């Protein structure tokens, strides 16, 4: 098939064939480009329009209102704090779990499926499950009660730290499997020879991790980082189910202004801010994890 095509071109059906060959990738990409433009591009443009205009004129009123919201700075702080705490933990867990799987213990296939179960659970359902654990009369308190520990109000508005802890635990449970799947897929692409060679030369476990496994996993980690950060910025249902409005996050504020306060422009301003943060993180990851000079050109 490939040879035939090459022969066709070389047989000189001429410029048109070469043109067709050049255009083919673009034609193949066109449907998805159109789809993305319609389904994502248009809402983004109209959201930006909402956030920056009022009755057709350019304005920053909505942004001022957004910043004046007394939960604005707490929401920014909580959102960034959540990312700073969740992402490293999730990557540590995911890489650790992937390495365990790679050691091929008995029933490793079964473990893998059990570990990815949270991926199939809707985030709202996950939030409600964890609510039944952290609620004042939930499973956790009942469990602690056996040991004579007094009731802890994990989700009370007075206990910001335990509220944060609950959201972190629930998010880690729910979303680590996404990173795991990507990392496991990445590991399967890494030839074992390198690792075996390092072992032959007597590299310790940490040396192999640092110099062999992680560098090879970089492309997968980059994808996972970008995906997870964007998704962590969107942590909504879990936090909403566990803490209501007591633990403000930017997404929750966007929802609140749009749906509960009927002010879509301010909601759009929050959404635009999130978009900007997500874009900044993505660019930062791409730049930080860019291949070093010597790394290029290994394969095609």
């Amino acid at each position, binding site marked *: 098939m490939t040879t035939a095509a090459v022969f066709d071109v070389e047989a000189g059906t001429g410029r048109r064939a070469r043109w067709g060959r050049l255009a083919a990738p673009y034609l193949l990409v066109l449907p998805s480009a159109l789809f993305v433009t319609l389904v994502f591009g248009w809402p983004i443009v109209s959201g930006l329009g909402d956030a920056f205009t009022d009755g057709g004129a350019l304005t920053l009123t909505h942004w001022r209102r957004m910043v*004046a919201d*007394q939960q604005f700075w707490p929401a920014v702080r909580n959102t960034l704090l959540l990312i700073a705490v969740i992402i490293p933990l999730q990557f540590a867990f995911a890489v650790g779990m992937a390495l365990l799987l790679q050691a091929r213990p008995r029933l490793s296939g079964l473990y893998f499926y059990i570990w990815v179960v949270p991926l199939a659970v809707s985030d*709202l359902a996950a939030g*409600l499950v964890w*609510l*039944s654990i952290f*609620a*004042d*009369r*939930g499973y956790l308190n009942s469990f602690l009660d056996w040991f004579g520990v007094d*009731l802890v*109000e994990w*989700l*009370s*508005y*007075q206990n910001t730290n335990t509220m944060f802890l609950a959201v972190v635990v629930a998010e880690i449970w729910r979303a680590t499997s996404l990173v795991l799947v990507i990392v496991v897929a990445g590991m399967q692409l890494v030839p074992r020879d390198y690792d075996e060679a390092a072992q032959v030369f007597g590299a310790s476990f940490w040396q192999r991790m640092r110099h062999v496994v992680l560098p090879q996993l970089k492309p997968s980690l980059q994808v996972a980082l970008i995906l997870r950060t964007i998704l962590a910025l969107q942590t909504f*249902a879990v936090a*909403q*189910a566990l803490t*209501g*409005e*007591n633990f403000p996050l930017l997404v929750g504020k966007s929802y609140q202004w*749009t*749906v*509960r*306060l*009927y*002010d879509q422009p301010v909601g759009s301003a929050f959404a635009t801010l999130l978009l900007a943060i997500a874009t900044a993180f993505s660019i930062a990851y791409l730049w930080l994890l860019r291949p070093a000079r010597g790394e290029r050109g290994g394969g095609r």
Partner: protein
Amino acid sequence: MGHAARSGRLSRREALRLGAAAGISIPVLRHSRAGASASGDVTFFSTQFNNVDEAERFRDILGRAYDGNVEFIPGDAGQLATQIRAQVEADRVEINLIGGLHGDLAPLAADGLLEDLSGVMESLGDRGYADGFLELAMAGGDVPVYIPWMQATYVLAIHNDALETLPSGADVNALTYDQFLEWSAAAREANDGRAVFGLPAGPDGLIHRFIQGYLYPSFTGGQISGFSSPEAVTMWEYFRSLWENCVAASANYSFMQEPLAAGEVLVGWDHVARLIEAPRDDPDAWTFAPAPSGPAGLGFMAILAGVAIPRGAPDQEAATALITALSEPATQLAVLSQNAFFPVVEAEITDDLPPEIQLEATAVAATQSADNAIAALPPVGLGANDAQMSQAFRDAFTAIVLDGNDIAEVLARQAEVIQGLLDEVEAPCWAPDPPSDGGVCRVDAGAPTTTQP
């Protein structure tokens, strides 16, 4: 403290379930549209009765009151706004009739999404609507854009066990806020230091109405005009002390009937429709009473729900016929006895009502007939800013009572927010603030108690 979050959990679930219903209601609407071929069928979207039991009972009432088929779809106010806006803008209105609180309908009217109902209102002229309600039904414009549907207010639900700690000399039907505080502290002491008073300050609770319609009028005589007055500072200090004697999970409560029925709370203030389940099993164990009075009087809030026709809705005759059926005294009384919303038309409240309704009706009558009663309305004419006005009061509550910030500072900041909201829609003052004579209502114009004899 301990017996807290069960109902916090329930109510939050409730909220989330309502959110989930957003996904369900659209297919349902499509379906009903396809099936609604016979004339007289009505699709009725309502922000009221969106609890499953309430909706079922209301469907029964509709079935008896109206000949045609009614597809009754309860949802939340956000869904209502989104759907009506989308349908009217796309010129494909599929909902014939909408029902909601004044605050749900006013923003739609402000954007011209509701039909002029002058004709319908004229034909119902002899039903005996209160003048105040007729004015509200114009939502700040010149013509009625909804027909008053039902009304409600807020009262105290008291489990009789709590009456044992009532301060001596206090009359439960004529409490002052000072006695109320003293009582809450005494009740707490009698319960091993655990509070038994509760307020609905959760995300879907109506704590902002307690502040707007009860505390502010009772302490300052107004709602807006004395917002950051010295009386208001006293009021917020009072509120802090009261909150210390409330169950901590109050910050999560949405409907007080849940913690009341579960025994977590013995004395709770809430909307009559959000209290009605508490005494249903054992009405004899309960007392319902008017809210307390403050230095300026007994402030209370009257809540109005209305029904409206979206602009360009199909089959408006059927919708009008349903409105007429809803305003029949018999239908209004059926709604009262089933779902605890009070009639807006002249209808005699008889003795054969369920006992829990009679408990409430007595407290409502006692409130309205009190010598020192100050009737307050939820913000009028705020249009699209209605919800943000409520939020401004809630934010003050969060900052002052929950987070313990400086009262004067918070009030100064929130006063600016509120003035901004009023200016944006040029809203004149509403009861109980003194009329602003056509001008925009001014925060801190001086409360009636300080400027008027």
